[in-house]
């Protein structure tokens, strides 16, 4: 009896939550989160002190909870000493999460339905670019305030945004085009090295690359050029993979691209000019949060433009039936080449940003583990979907951070989760969903 009613109850709860949040536009959520982060900035310290938390939780309290879980596990496995008093951190962290985030965001988002929708409708009267800029600006403000509260947050956020761009660039090939490419970390490596070569080689004095060629204070303005240079070089590398892979029909890409990844890695390991296996360090600190945010937004925008155009939809046609695509005048080889190089370009740009966030780059960063990570993000989030890549990259990044206290067990939990997703949603969480920018930023009409 209980078993029969229980799932229905949960379904009912989800249904009610869904109904509750249905009329909230993106603008409403943004306002909600803005209130949250301001509220945390104001009251976060006091509340965590009041709740007896050791310090303000940096990652929505998740890190605090998993630290306790890790303590219990270590007690059970290794018999390490465990301070039972920390057990209370689990409920208090949850209280913190609820009070600081969940309640304000729900209340504000829901209460602001009418004004937010009205504002979104008003903005709709302007060109799309205005609507987008206003909401992206708001989004940036939220992220900025949130990340301002700790350095850990800032770096986690930067790496997450880079992961979003990197994941989406791979989704072009593995999702939209439907061929399995393994060389993406290689393209990222090329981008990272080449943009570092540009910035470190030209503008800073370095042991490996020698003295600065130019010295002027506004040198950071050249950073976009460095990123484009890195991306272009990555695309050039992609050409080496693309020419033999797409010459004939059939699936050679997986093998050739995997070989390419290893070649790139050992190339950089053996290039003493580029620092060998120690790599290049001392990149200028130019990859600031706004730079990364703007680059990511621009990258998503161009990729989404491409995949929603008829020219880009040709990728889907090639994936679903290549012969039919060709019979309908699609130049399949050109289509595949363009998509592959385009994906590699953005991977290179992501690599350039990564090198300048970490401020070092070495070949070991671009190993098979990096490949596994980005593939997990693509397949977890969902193939053929911009939403999917955003969700996949953000959730795997945050999960990776939140589960960090579990140490080695983290690498059991994340793959296990992936397996579950593959069983219940074989193409990922949000696959094959079109990302309509106008709709995303527009009001939610519910009758």
């Amino acid at each position, binding site marked *: 009896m209980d078993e029969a009613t229980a799932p229905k109850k949960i379904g009912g709860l989800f249904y009610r939550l869904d109904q509750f949040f249905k009329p909230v536009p993106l603008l409403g959520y943004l306002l909600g989160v803005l209130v949250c982060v301001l509220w945390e900035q104001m009251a976060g310290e006091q509340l965590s002190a009041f709740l007896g938390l050791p310090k303000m939780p940096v990652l929505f309290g998740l890190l605090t909870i998993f630290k306790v879980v890790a303590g219990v596990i270590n007690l059970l496995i290794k018999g390490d000493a465990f301070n039972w008093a920390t057990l209370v951190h689990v409920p208090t962290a949850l209280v913190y999460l609820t009070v600081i985030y969940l309640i304000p965001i729900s209340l504000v988002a829901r209460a602001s339905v009418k004004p937010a929708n009205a504002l979104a409708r008003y903005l709709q009267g302007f060109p799309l670019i205005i609507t987008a800029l206003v909401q992206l600006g708001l989004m940036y403000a939220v992220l900025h305030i949130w990340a301002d509260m700790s350095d850990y947050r800032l770096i986690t956020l930067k790496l997450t945004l880079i992961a979003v761009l990197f994941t989406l660039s791979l989704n072009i090939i593995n999702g939209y085009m439907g061929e399995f490419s393994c060389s993406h970390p290689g393209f990222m490596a090329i981008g990272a090295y080449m943009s570092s070569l540009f910035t470190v080689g030209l503008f800073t004095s370095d042991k490996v690359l020698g003295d600065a060629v130019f010295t002027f204070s506004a040198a950071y303005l050249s950073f976009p050029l460095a990123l484009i240079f890195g991306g272009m070089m990555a695309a050039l590398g992609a050409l080496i993979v693309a020419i033999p892979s797409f010459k004939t029909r059939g699936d050679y890409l997986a093998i050739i691209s995997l070989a390419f990844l290893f070649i790139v890695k050992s190339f950089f390991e053996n290039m003493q000019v580029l620092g060998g296996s120690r790599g290049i360090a001392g990149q200028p600190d130019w990859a600031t949060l706004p730079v990364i945010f703007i680059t990511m937004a621009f990258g998503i925008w*161009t990729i989404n*433009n491409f995949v929603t155009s*008829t020219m880009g939809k040709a990728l889907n046609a090639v994936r679903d039936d290549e012969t039919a695509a*060709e019979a309908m005048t699609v130049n399949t080889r050109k289509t595949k080449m363009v998509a592959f190089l385009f994906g590699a370009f953005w991977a290179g740009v992501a690599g350039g940003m990564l090198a300048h966030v970490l401020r070092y780059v070495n070949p070991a960063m671009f190993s098979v583990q990096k490949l596994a990570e980005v593939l997990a993000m693509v397949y977890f989030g969902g193939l053929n979907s911009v939403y999917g890549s955003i969700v996949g990259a953000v959730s795997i990044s945050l999960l990776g951070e939140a589960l960090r206290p579990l140490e080695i067990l983290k690498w059991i939990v994340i793959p296990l989760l992936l397996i579950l997703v593959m069983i219940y949603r074989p193409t990922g969480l949000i696959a094959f969903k079109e990302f309509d920018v106008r709709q995303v930023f527009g009001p939610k009409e519910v009758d």
Partner: protein
Amino acid sequence: MPLLHVTDMSHNFGGLQAVSEYNLSLDPGQITGLIGPNGAGKTTIFNLITGLYRPTKGSVRFDGEELVGKKLNETAAMGLARTFQEMKLWRHMTVLEHIKMARYSKLSYGLMGAFLGTPKRRREERKVTELAMEYLKMFAVDQVADQLVVNLPYGDQRRVEMARALVIEPKVLLLDEPTVGMTPDEMMAMIEVIRKAHERFNLAIFLIEHRLQVVRELCQHVQALVFGQVLVEGKSDEVQNHPKVIEAYIGEQEVEF
């Protein structure tokens, strides 16, 4: 001068002579049928003409241009559209996207337009959408324009496929068994669709069919193919009642039972 002119075309798959010394001349506006038992090489001939395979010997001239050596997408862009026996629709794409895709070679914007979403691209996409909707209306599938094509009933899928080939604005349409797997009613409707398309676009049609009724209704000229060779050629009735053709078909039936 014929629109599509095939002379002495032969092809072998590693020693197996699939097509030998095949000839065809198709005038503008003419409907020619190609019949023959399974495995006679009918679809191979389609694949050879359109450039999916390259003939070992012979020439294919279309509108005065040599097609041998051109790829499938190139011959299609030149105005030689084809359909497939197994339809080959794209399972993750909507009906409208199918039709728009066939305008690929005529898109007026370049790669930068696609990446940056320029006004030119937006105008072009709107234009293509309008055109596609016209074609969908013509084939009475405009109501389902936003649905995934795999969710459509079989007859509608066939019509979408037909519209997709016609939006290329071809001069010659090659139809590979357009009524396969249809009920008699669906078949009659399909014959009407083909006839209408033929009249409206003044198409030359080259048609593979198993159902002799379809051939009789549509084709002025028929070729009967057996083991890669044209056995008999001529008016529809003459070919169908030719003793050699009957033998070829019945012979096949004897093997089957």
